[in-house]
């Protein structure tokens, strides 16, 4: 084990069972990521990319194996401890943005802060900072339906970073966007990585997007490798 690594997953095994059938999605997977890294995770559809992201986010737990993040073995935490840990350490960006349609941009970004002990002014300050980071201060009062896809995804990113987590997990963040808006998102992620030192794991099918990362990892046959399957 490399002690300098920030995220360290070892012997990860993830099995899903459907009735009597069971499939091994991740198989003795090892993964080491240093703080401040920007990883693009690629692989065929169904190779287990989202599954791995969910394990790192602590949304799901491995069948066995350990995932140590910043010194904490999150597989050993109980459900509510893991949830609490996630709110402090992980920002999650969805392919389909998944903003709450009834809330405006500002309220959407504020949502994760409601779980923290902050007063109204502090929350407001943080929300505006996050919105200005994604360059959307002027859209604070717009509903998701009044925003473009790229803008929605930027609100999604603002929501992911408003609690100032160290890790940003993005599951195909540009998958629903045209090239131009996609590039803006990638630029934004690069900035968050280089200027704000966020450790980013981004799942993508798009080699162009993957090229923006510092490293590209490929997932196949349940394992991570640095080489694409030819």
């Amino acid at each position: 084990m490399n002690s300098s690594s920030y995220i360290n997953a070892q012997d990860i095994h993830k099995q899903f069972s459907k009735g009597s059938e069971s499939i091994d999605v991740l198989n003795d997977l090892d993964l080491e990521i240093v703080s401040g890294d920007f990883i693009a995770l690629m692989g065929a559809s169904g190779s287990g990319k989202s599954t791995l992201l969910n394990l790192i986010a602590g949304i799901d737990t491995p069948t066995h194996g350990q995932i140590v993040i910043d010194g904490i073995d999150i597989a050993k935490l109980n459900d509510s401890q893991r949830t609490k840990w996630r709110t402090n350490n992980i920002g999650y960006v969805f392919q389909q943005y998944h903003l709450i349609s009834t809330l405006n941009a500002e309220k959407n970004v504020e949502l994760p802060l409601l779980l923290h002990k902050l007063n109204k002014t502090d929350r407001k300050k943080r929300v505006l900072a996050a919105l200005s980071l994604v360059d959307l201060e002027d859209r604070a009062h717009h509903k998701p339906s009044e925003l473009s896809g790229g803008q929605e995804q930027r609100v999604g990113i603002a929501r992911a970073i408003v609690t100032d987590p160290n890790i940003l997990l993005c599951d195909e963040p540009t998958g629903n966007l045209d090239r131009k808006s996609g590039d803006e998102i990638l630029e934004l992620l690069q900035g968050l990585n280089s200027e704000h030192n966020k450790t980013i794991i981004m799942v993508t099918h798009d080699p162009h997007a993957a090229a923006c990362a510092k490293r590209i990892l490929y997932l196949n046959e349940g394992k991570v490798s640095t080489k694409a399957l030819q």
Partner: protein
Amino acid sequence: MKFLPLIFADILTKKVRFIFILAALSIAFFLFAYLSAIKQGFIGGVDASGVDRMIVVNKVSTFNTMPISYKHKILNVPGVLRVSEASWFGGYYQDRKNTFPQYAVHPEDYLAMREGEFEIDEEQVQAWIKDREGALIGDTIAERFGWEVGDRITLTTTIWENKQWNNDWEFNICGIATTKNKNVNMQGMLFHHKYFDEARAWGNDQVGWFTIQSKDAKQLDTISNRIDDFFENSDNETKTSPEKSFTRGFINQIGDIEAIFLSILGVVFITLLAVTGSAMTQGIKEHMSDIAVMSVIGFSPRFIATITIIESVVVALIGSSIGIMLAWLACSMFGDPTNGLLPIFHMPDLVAWKGLGLAGLFGFVIGLIPVILILRMDKVQALRAIN
């Protein structure tokens, strides 16, 4: 309450559905409150009946009479404090539509046993007692016909002829009573049984019923048995019952009001609630993807469930409040919808509280359906479903 926007943003965004749900809920609870008021109009008399009073009627039927000589015999029964003879006059003022209750009673005895139920000027009482043709009326009826103390009025009865074989009887208004008890009928008129008996062409020395005040409200059964036993095997056997059950029995002659009330209400209410219930459930179900996102962000299922329930209860309370308020307005502005059949008509406060309680319960139950889904939700599956 930093979570308030989470609740209300949703309610206010789906405006059309929200308005539809509110409308349906208000209609349901309007009917609930309004019909409750009508029911209260029918059975309110039961509440107003004296706990220490009894009614003696002819055992054959309430329409058969008894000799007035029974009065002194009843007074001698142990436990009886006061007795007043009473007869039904069955009159109307000028037009048959203007029917209202008039009772021929014994002034002093009758007033004594209803002490505290209504207020009346002592001078007016004395004037009434002295005036053989005097009448005492409730303020509601005084207002309805514009009668004042000192007026001489003519009532026509469908039952009784006077000695001139005429159905028109004259009375002097001697006093107008008021009350603070909403269940007391203030549409009535009291007058001297003695005048009634002496002036009528037939049926003399007979009374419709006796109202009795007992010395002990706990002994009504014993006392009524004594009375009925005393008159057993006489020409006119009696049937004595507490005033409350007598009133209830009388009302039930119209039909089992409560059963009618419950069945009308049941049908309307259940239909409307089913409609709103499904609209509300659907609204919450459309949120399941939001809920999955919120749970990824870190909100616990229990927290989301609580918000969902609160939302559902709040909507139900808003809708029902509107309905109950409208019913209250309708009751106080338009009054008795039957035009005189319900002398006592008002919406009791209890109805409002019951309605709100019912609405809260309804909101809670409706909220429970999605909450079960939320609590059973598998975060990973939910996330897969939305991603």
